[in-house]
């Protein structure tokens, strides 16, 4: 595929990289890695790693590529952290109703630094959802669903869905009281959707929360959904490489900086994000109270916070209508923005933004209603 690498650079320094370079194409490995973020420009795999890196570092990057345009990259790193902490948790976690709670408690309570890993994973999931939702809002606001970035939008919207499912399946795994019952409730909402719901409950093995469902949630949580998310990350960065970063009107002439400097800025952002996660994980204990009791439904069971708004509506609709409304909401999230098209790009973006604001306000109002009204009843 790639050409034979050129002989090692005649610098005279015959370090271990050069030694390795003669035996394997490190540049190719690097380009593979860069598919999941970091480098937006194509990498010339025919050149030695040092040269290729120097090339990449010298690439110009527009100065507008700064916070908050880099939420996708932060999400990618958070996903990596989740994978790492999840891997560690999986060493002790046992996915059966009898052992799930005890093994999670063992991790969170008795293992040295188990609490830290558990907390990092719990809060990391929450922050990941928040980051991806913020990113979706940002893409929508700047009209990045318009040609040629439709695929970017679709993958971003799908990512929110996948991470929500990851959170949903992950909620069940500790088999604690709150998680268990919020999954029972959430399954009623999600399972009511005409096609997607059927697919979801089929792949989870039904709507009854039992040992089978726990095992399948575990498989989805640690194998299937992370693989899908990794694929979506790849798609995201692949579109970036094709269509480039998107300047907002009037920002294009903001000048450019080198990729090297850009990478340092990105790294600082990642370090800050990591620091935030560690601080939250250490300071705020995630709720982890008592083992699930399938025979006693606690009062005021509600789905997770990001499902509160649809739940508030669906709860008040007859079953069949609720399912259709939920399905339409999911489809609207994916394809809705594509409805805003027209000859006047500016006007259609304005309309899209207006609708977006209306949607967000309605969503927040419904969530608030779900929090306060349903608690009162």
């Amino acid at each position: 595929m790639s050409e034979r690498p050129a002989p090692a650079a005649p610098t005279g320094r015959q370090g271990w990289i050069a030694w390795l370079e003669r035996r394997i194409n490190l540049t190719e490995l690097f380009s593979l890695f860069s598919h999941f973020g970091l480098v937006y420009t194509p990498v010339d795999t025919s050149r030695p790693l040092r040269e290729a890196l120097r090339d990449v570092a010298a690439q110009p990057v527009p100065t507008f590529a700064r916070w908050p345009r880099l939420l996708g990259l932060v999400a990618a790193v958070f996903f990596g952290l989740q994978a790492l902490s999840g891997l560690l948790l999986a060493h002790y976690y046992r996915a059966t109703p009898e052992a799930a709670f005890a093994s999670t408690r063992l991790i969170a309570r008795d293992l040295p630094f188990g609490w830290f890993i558990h907390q990092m994973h719990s809060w990391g999931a929450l922050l990941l959802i928040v980051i991806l939702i913020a990113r979706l809002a940002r893409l929508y606001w700047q009209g990045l669903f318009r040609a040629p970035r439709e695929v970017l939008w679709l993958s971003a919207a799908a990512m929110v869905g996948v991470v929500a499912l990851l959170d949903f399946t992950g909620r069940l795994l500790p088999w604690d009281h709150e998680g268990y019952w919020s999954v029972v409730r959430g399954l009623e909402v999600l399972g009511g959707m005409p096609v997607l719901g059927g697919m979801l409950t089929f792949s989870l093995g039904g709507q009854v929360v039992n040992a089978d469902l726990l095992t399948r949630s575990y498989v989805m949580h640690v194998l299937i959904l992370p693989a899908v998310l990794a694929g979506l990350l790849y798609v995201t960065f692949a579109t970036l490489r094709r269509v480039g970063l998107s300047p907002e009107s009037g920002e294009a002439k903001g000048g450019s900086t080198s990729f090297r400097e850009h990478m340092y800025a990105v790294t600082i952002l990642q370090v800050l994000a990591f620091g935030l996660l560690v601080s939250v994980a250490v300071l705020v204990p995630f709720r982890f109270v008592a083992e699930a009791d399938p025979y006693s439904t606690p009062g005021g069971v509600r789905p997770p916070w990001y499902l509160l708004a649809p739940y508030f509506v669906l709860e008040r609709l007859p079953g069949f209508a609720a399912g259709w409304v939920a399905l339409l909401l999911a489809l609207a999230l994916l394809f809705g923005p594509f409805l805003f098209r027209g000859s006047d790009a500016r006007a259609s973006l304005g309309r899209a933004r207006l609708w977006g604001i209306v949607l967000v306000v309605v969503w927040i109002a419904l969530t608030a209603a779900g929090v306060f009204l349903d608690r009162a009843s």
Partner: protein
Amino acid sequence: MSAARVLFAALVALALAAAGPAPRASAQEAADGRAGAGKCGTCHPRERVAYASSRHAQEEVRCVSCHGGNDRALDVGAAHSGSFKGRPSRASIPRLCASCHADEERMRPYNLPVDQYALYQTSGHGKALARGDTRVAVCSDCHGAHDILPPSDPRSRVHRPNIPKTCGHCHGDTTSASGAISGKPTYGVYVKSVHAHALFDRGNPNAPTCVSCHGVHGAAPPSMGSVDKVCGQCHEVERRYVAAGPHAPERGEASARPQCVTCHGSHEVTAAQPERLASSCVDCHEADGPQAKLGERLWNDYRVASAEVDQAADVLARAEAVPLNTEDYQARLEEARTYMREALPAAHAADAQVVESFTQRARAVAREVQSELHAKLGNLQLRRLLLVVFWFYLIITILILRRFQKAPRRG
């Protein structure tokens, strides 16, 4: 044999058949009491309905068993003839019931006691009745007349939770104006007591009702000097400690020594109020005497120990929320609570050393639990400290990154 004689014989046979023992009532009739009521229910439907669901209907105690007369006659004159007694007088009711219920042979199949009548005669009710006061309770006032039900039946007036109301019918404040015997609002006082709370609100079937202290058929107020025995039926430990202390029943003059009711009251008895250890002594003793001081000391001991146990429980709850492993400490805290539970009865001995033997042990356990939990929670402070160190290095990392970022421009 002439035709006339045959006819006569046939008539006699018919008449004998009609007057002879009636065929056994069908099971259905027996079940709804129609058999026992005979034809009386035709004119007395209300009594028949009440009787039909009663215990007596199931055992074929018939109308005529108590009222006499003939229950197969539809004619008033014929029915109310012969042994007919009509409505038994109140004074005669105990003896009437006793005619069966004091009969050992009759009661043996039911395994029922036969001493109720004898007990009744020793009761306040029985003695007053013997003096000719017919306003006092007789059997039917508590058990009902036609609708007698076993105590196990929740509809029964003598079903345990219904007993206070049954007694309160005469001994309550609600009926005292309408010619009740006792003017004291005993029922109204009782329903506010800790005993009634246990019986009604917490559903404790063993909680004391009126009869637990006063007796059932032999109902009478506990006599002077027997109060500690009555209360001691349930409050054994308290009684033992009282007996070991200066208030023991056999010490001092009968009139001067306190009974349980002296401090706790009788019908109005409330839940244990440890703070009254400090205030009750002065009811009998001098305000600045050694006894009052002892009371204050007992209360102080209890209060301090109780506060320490509560404090340990708070720390435990904090540790649980972390989560830390607290199972071992829960068991030890329960041990401390057990000592505290024993300390209150022990206060009845009015001896500081006895009480302290419990409060000191409770405090020792609570302190131990607290200090060990604090050590564990101290590790959490260490986490926060490490977080500060972590941020220190994070900021240094960021500064170094900034420097590298700017380096080419400088060079």
